[in-house]
């Protein structure tokens, strides 16, 4: 009985609860809402909306909308989203909510990509700079490297050839750490080591790893810094389609003021007795420059589910350069697919393909002797009293100096086409073996195929004597990369450990061939019909292969978020290394202290975080090319009895002890955030000592081999980096953010082979000048070397300490410092006459937003570097047209001048042509407008922005050449380190106006 009664009670209770439940249900309701970003009002998809104190939650859809059931009006929602401050909202009686999330100003919680992993920004112990997508696409750029210019402290970016379509960029992180090997930063794209850059629009972020702690994980390839590129990935949700398109017009930024035909005649008559003026008056720069254009369109499709994400993007870039006949066309495709096969197993595939077609014009001639020269230098040199054509329809040839074609002929007749196909695919699989232990394997392959075709027709000098000359060159570079690594994360109370250990194998193959012919019946076949040439030139081909086998590891230890220790090491074995030094080991360590988390600062209202960092380590530069350490006979071209025969000569002795170059870097840094994280400041000091530099040690020449590469040099780079990120104003409608970075780098040669100076020859061949720059212990790399100009000789006694060259000793001649006081200028009177290294470089970016309007103002500067201007040297030599400065040349009636009397002079390297190349440039100015949401709602477009922008609109400089961002002969490893601050025949820098549209569906 009792039992039954009891049962009854239970039933009643149950029914009551159920009734109560119904009652409670009656209190519940659906609440809908929209989550947007407070900064730009954009909908935020994928936001977590949780009912506080319960496990009920919702996720916002692609339009930022969510619906959640709430128990009553007292419900509190916790709204959280990565990168935004978590917000708690009390519902009250509202039925719909508009929640605007604030960007998490404490960027320190950002995740930073490092080698083989990621780390929270607050846990970073090395020197790493991040550059985000928005900065990389702020204005149209040739490529992602150029987009990096001015964006990160310690990173110097410069075009190797002005505004040329497809011009290669030179990127230096903390200066050049080598002389004879490459100082180019290592580029890692989504884990693929040594990849080529994707289009800027496809990049989510770039991390620049600068100190040894960050780069040692890349061991023998780390000493030039590493650029980690992460491409965009899909996010779960409805598919999004993005269309970004822009059109730009470009004009030459600055021309050189040259003599017109009449001024030229006056000039020529001053020193040339048999000159008669030509009938034309041609502005050659006018003839070859035009208004250029860029059209750039990207279409990206992305989306995903809980278990799969995709991002597919296509990009089409086409540019008509500002010099006639110079064009570039480029297609790129990028696809990222990521799949969660199970909750422990993930796979993904990254595919990249690109084709670029470049139709080039000749620039930066290596020699401008007879039949030589390039379009740009010819436009400066060529006599203005000649027209494009002679009376018989042939092209004119210069009437002074060496015989060269006029620039119009060179630009229109010479064919120089380059087509590059790049393909890269990288597969990964990751598996969580146990909690915290992940195994990841990647397998990647890349191939770069290049075809270069050239044709010099008979209509220009280079082809006229030889019946036209055509050549075709094919190159292929392939790379296979397999990497496997384990990551283990373990927390023991306040002790957090992350271990990484891995193995990597990489194989690189390069091959190529060139064929060429001369003596064509017609100029119509270009390089597509070599068999049509009567004279076959010596063909050539090459092949080389190298393997790199590596073990790497890293330990991160973090205690209570306050103290961080990192140890990193890599052991690289390379087939390129010499017999006795096959394996190289590169360790590094770093320590960081989050002082801001200590009690005495924890509650500060002013200082939000304060982190000290110190790191030291060794990284390498592989610098040794395949087969370089082997003794070699080399095949040479040999002729016996007018027949070509087999011939070999001894070119190299075996080099069994050659090693890689090692950079030992110390980095001391501090990161501080103030005022609710509205002001971030970072400061770094670094000192990089590069040892075992590879130098060709001059051997006794009577040994039959003139030099051998040996490890005999040391170089030092040191400097400061300072960056500020500040949100000056952050009100609801108006925001103003400033980013400023400033860096110095001082480099000097510490040790040279036997302490002897090394001379570098960089003058154009027809100058017939050697020893234009010098490497000297204690001096900056690439210091200019020549005679110190002391003005014009006025006749009579030579001013103290000066003299003239023996052939130029009449009044009006050039005076130079006479260092050995022998009353005459000779090679012994040469000295260092300039330093190309800038004192500092900076970038200064300002973003303004007012309601739907935005504005960007970006300045970039380089201060204190000097340029040796070969162009102006040639224009003062008497063997070319001259600049209008020549109107002020010395004469008996015009003695108060710095310009000597007109004469034909040897093209000597003198300080007269060394100039301060400091500049401050407005790199970008843009105005944008986001179309208002109500308007877009009807169209299905989620977001639309139109903008206009201008690049290089203003330049402040005293540099008298065409452009202070000049480069010349910078095209291989050795030259890219030592040939700094040279200017000759570069493609002009451009001013660009852009109209663009960004659409998101």
């Amino acid at each position: 009985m009792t039992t039954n009664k009891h049962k009854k009670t239970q039933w009643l209770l149950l029914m009551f609860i159920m009734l109560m439940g119904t009652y409670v249900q009656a209190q519940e309701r659906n609440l809908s809402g929209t989550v947007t970003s407070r900064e730009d009002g954009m909908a935020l998809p994928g936001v977590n909306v949780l009912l506080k104190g319960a496990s009920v939650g919702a996720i916002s859809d692609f339009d930022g909308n969510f619906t959640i059931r709430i128990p009553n009006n007292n419900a509190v929602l916790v709204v959280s989203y990565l990168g935004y401050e978590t917000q708690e909202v009390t519902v009250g009686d509202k039925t719909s909510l508009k929640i605007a999330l604030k960007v998490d100003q404490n960027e320190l919680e950002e995740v930073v990509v490092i080698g083989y992993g990621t780390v929270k920004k607050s846990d970073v112990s090395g020197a790493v700079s991040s550059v985000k997508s928005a900065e990389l696409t702020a204005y149209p750029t040739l490529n992602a490297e150029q987009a990096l210019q001015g964006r990160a402290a310690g990173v110097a970016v410069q075009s190797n050839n002005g505004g040329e379509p497809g011009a290669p960029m030179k990127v230096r992180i903390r200066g050049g750490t080598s002389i004879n090997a490459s100082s180019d930063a290592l580029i890692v794209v989504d884990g693929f080591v040594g990849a080529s850059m994707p289009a800027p629009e496809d990049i989510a972020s770039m991390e620049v790893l600068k100190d040894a702690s960050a780069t040692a994980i890349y061991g023998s390839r780390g000493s030039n810094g590493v650029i980690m590129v992460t491409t965009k990935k899909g996010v779960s949700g409805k598919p999004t389609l993005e269309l970004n398109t822009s059109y730009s017009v470009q004009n030459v930024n600055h021309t050189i003021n040259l003599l017109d035909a009449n001024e030229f005649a006056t000039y020529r008559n001053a020193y040339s007795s048999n000159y008669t003026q030509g009938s034309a008056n041609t502005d050659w720069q006018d003839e070859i420059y035009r208004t250029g254009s860029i059209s750039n369109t990207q279409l990206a499709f992305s989306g995903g589910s809980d278990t799969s994400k995709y991002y597919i993007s296509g990009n089409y870039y086409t540019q008509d350069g500002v010099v006639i006949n110079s064009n570039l066309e480029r297609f790129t495709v990028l696809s990222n697919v990521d799949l969660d096969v199970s909750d422990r197993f993930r796979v993904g595939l990254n595919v990249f393909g690109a084709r670029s077609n470049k139709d080039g014009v000749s620039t930066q001639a290596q020699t401008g002797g007879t039949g030589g020269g390039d379009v740009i230098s010819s436009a400066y040199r060529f006599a203005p009293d000649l027209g494009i054509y002679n009376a018989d329809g042939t092209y004119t040839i210069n009437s002074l100096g060496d015989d060269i074609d006029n620039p119009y002929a060179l630009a229109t007749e010479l064919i120089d086409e380059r087509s590059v196909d790049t393909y890269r695919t990288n597969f990964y699989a990751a598996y969580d073996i146990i909690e915290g232990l992940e195994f990841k394997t990647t397998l990647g392959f890349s191939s770069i195929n290049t075809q270069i075709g050239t044709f010099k027709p008979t209509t220009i000098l280079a082809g006229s004597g030889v019946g036209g000359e055509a050549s075709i060159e094919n190159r292929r570079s392939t790379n296979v990369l397999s990497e496997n690594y384990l990551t283990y994360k373990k927390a023991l109370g306040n002790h957090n450990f992350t271990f990484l250990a891995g193995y990597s194998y990489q194989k690189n193959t390069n091959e190529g061939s060139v064929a060429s012919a001369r003596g064509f019946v017609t100029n119509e076949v270009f390089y597509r019909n070599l068999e049509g040439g009567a004279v076959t030139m010596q063909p050539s081909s090459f092949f080389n292969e190298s393997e790199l086998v590596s073990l790497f590891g890293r330990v991160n230890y973090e205690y209570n978020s306050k103290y961080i220790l990192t140890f990193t090491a890599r052991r690289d074995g390379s087939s390129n290394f010499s017999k006795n030094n096959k394996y190289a080991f590169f360790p590094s360590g770093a320590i960081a202290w989050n002082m801001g988390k200590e009690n005495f600062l924890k509650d500060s209202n002013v200082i939000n975080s304060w982190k000290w960092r110190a790191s030291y380590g060794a990284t390498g530069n592989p610098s040794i090319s395949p087969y370089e350490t082997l003794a070699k006979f080399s095949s040479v071209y040999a002729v016996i009895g007018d027949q070509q025969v087999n011939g070999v000569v001894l070119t190299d002795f075996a080099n069994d002890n050659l090693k890689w170059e090692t950079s030992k870097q110390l980095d001391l840094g501090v990161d501080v955030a103030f005022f609710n994280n509205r002001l971030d400041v970072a400061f770094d000091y670094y000192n990089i000592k590069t040892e075992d530099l590879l130098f060709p040690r001059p051997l006794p020449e009577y040994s039959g081999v003139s030099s051998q590469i040996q490890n005999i040099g040391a170089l030092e780079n040191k400097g400061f980096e300072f960056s500020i990120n500040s949100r000056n104003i952050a009100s609801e409608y108006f925001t103003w953010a400033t980013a400023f970075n400033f860096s110095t780098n001082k480099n000097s040669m510490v040790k040279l082979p036997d302490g002897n100076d090394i001379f570098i020859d960089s003058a154009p061949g027809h100058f017939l000048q050697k020893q234009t720059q010098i490497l000297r212990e204690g001096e900056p790399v690439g210091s200019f070397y020549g005679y110190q100009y002391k003005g014009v000789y006025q006749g009579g006694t030579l001013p103290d300490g000066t003299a003239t060259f023996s052939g130029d000793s009449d009044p009006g001649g050039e005076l130079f410092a006479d260092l050995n006081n022998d009353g005459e200028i000779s090679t012994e009177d040469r000295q260092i006459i300039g330093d190309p290294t800038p004192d500092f470089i900076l970038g200064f970016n300002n973003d303004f937003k007012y309601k739907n309007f935005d504005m960007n103002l970006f300045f970039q500067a380089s201060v204190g570097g000097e340029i040796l201007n070969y162009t102006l040297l040639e224009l003062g030599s008497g063997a070319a047209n001259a600049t209008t400065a020549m109107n002020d040349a010395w004469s008996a009636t015009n003695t108060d001048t710095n310009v000597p009397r007109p004469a034909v002079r040897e093209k000597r390297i003198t300080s007269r042509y060394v100039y301060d190349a400091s500049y401050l440039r407005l790199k970008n100015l843009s105005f944008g407008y986001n179309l208002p949401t109500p308007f877009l709602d009807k169209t299905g477009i989620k977001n639309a922005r139109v903008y206009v922008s201008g690049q290089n609109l203003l330049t402040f400089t005293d540099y008298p050449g065409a452009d202070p961002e000049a480069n010349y002969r910078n095209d291989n490893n050795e030259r890219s380190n030592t040939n700094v601050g040279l200017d000759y025949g570069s493609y002009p820098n451009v001013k660009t106006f852009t109209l663009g549209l960004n659409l998101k569906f």
Partner: protein
Amino acid sequence: MKIMKKYKITLLLLTLTFLGCSDLEEQPVGVLAPESFFKTTADLQAVINGSFAGLSTESFWGRKLSLTLLLRGDMADIGDQGTSGRRREVNNFTMADDNGMVSAFWPQAYSIIGTANQAISNANLIDEEESKVNEVVAQAYFVRAFTYYHLVRLFGDIPYIDFAVADAADIATISKTPEDEVYANIISDLMFAKQWLPNIQPSSALPSKATAAAYLASVYLTTKEYQNAATEAQFVINKEDDFDLALESDFQDLFNSDKTAGLHEPLFSIDYVGQTRVGNYGQDYIAPVTGIRGDASYDYGEGWSVAVPSLKVYNTWDGRDYRRAVSLDTTATSKEGLVYPYTEFEDYSDLAVNRPHIAKYYRNAGLAGNNGRESSNNYIPMRYAEVLLIAAEALNEINGGAPEAVSYINRLRDRARMETMYPMDVPVGLSQEELRKVIIEERRLELAFEFKRWYDIKRLNIGVEAFGINGLEPQPNFDESRDYLLPLPGPELARNPNLLPNNTGY
């Protein structure tokens, strides 16, 4: 089950893992290793061909050495004064130990020697009949002697290496070998060459027995061992038929790139194929550096007027001598096709000079690149005419006024006449002194601009006269205590102080 799955996935991933294991040994493709190279005489010949190829480089006979020899003498002066300092220094006797001509041809000379030494030291590795091997390796002895012969005349005491060097450290501290020892070694090399080389080679670009003998004669003339010089020269002359040697009937044919390959006069030639070269190899610039600025006579375009004879060279040369017409150009052609005389050369280019220009290389360069570079010229460092001159000079020294000497000279004069009466035969009965003067003058004109004159000036010690105020090319800086030797490259002495001191005056 779950464990099985985990196992499978791990296995799957591990298969990807071991994609590359490597011993890191390099297996070069297209690269030749010296230690395994020498197997047959063909391999030996390829190395020797490499040293011949070294002769054809821009840094040697293509320009740097040949132009140095041209400018150093009194038969060619600087034309375009804007040309590079290194050339003017050679010409004007203002050289220092950093001269850019020397610093180019010095290492090239030793590269040629080093490659020849590889052939000589490794010839014993070849498993073929010794006489067969010797016949081939004798060429290497010849080219080594040829190169040292240039060096010893230019520099005097020099580092002398006669074995294959494996490591530069082995010879880093050697001293200079005295001039007379170098000569002795050259003679010994040429003796070996003369012993083993065949009478006739398929091309004059390969040395024959006669070539070795002719060079022996030349060396003995330089060392003033006149009897030996005469013997070696007459060894060639007396067997001229066996060696298939003759004077060409038309002097111009020696300087016509279309014809040089088929001639009987050359004893040694350095061959070039027009418009073909690879880098420094097969690259000659003698046509452009001697050609006329502003001249449009040839498809390949203007010359550069760098090495141009003084006006006196032209004015003192009898106009009836056919060899003057072959050796010098007195007119040029404008772009409009107008032929103009040398007195107007400067009107057509700022860089030209109003003097007749050397024609031997520029006039018939054949198929050539721009300005006549990469020409089809074959240069002839030793031709039969010189053997006759050597014999004549040596015989006259042994026996003043020797009739045989006169007859040899008259063979050259006969050829030079070309249907005119000039130059007349040298009469018999001249004194030793008179005949010596005739022979030296004959050498100067017959071998004009053939890179011989400087060596003659030095050998005969006539610099003071040649560069004096009444000489062909007055050079106030000429100093006989200094200028008969060039400076060794300064950096070479800095690397190995045992080579110090440099030659007097540098």
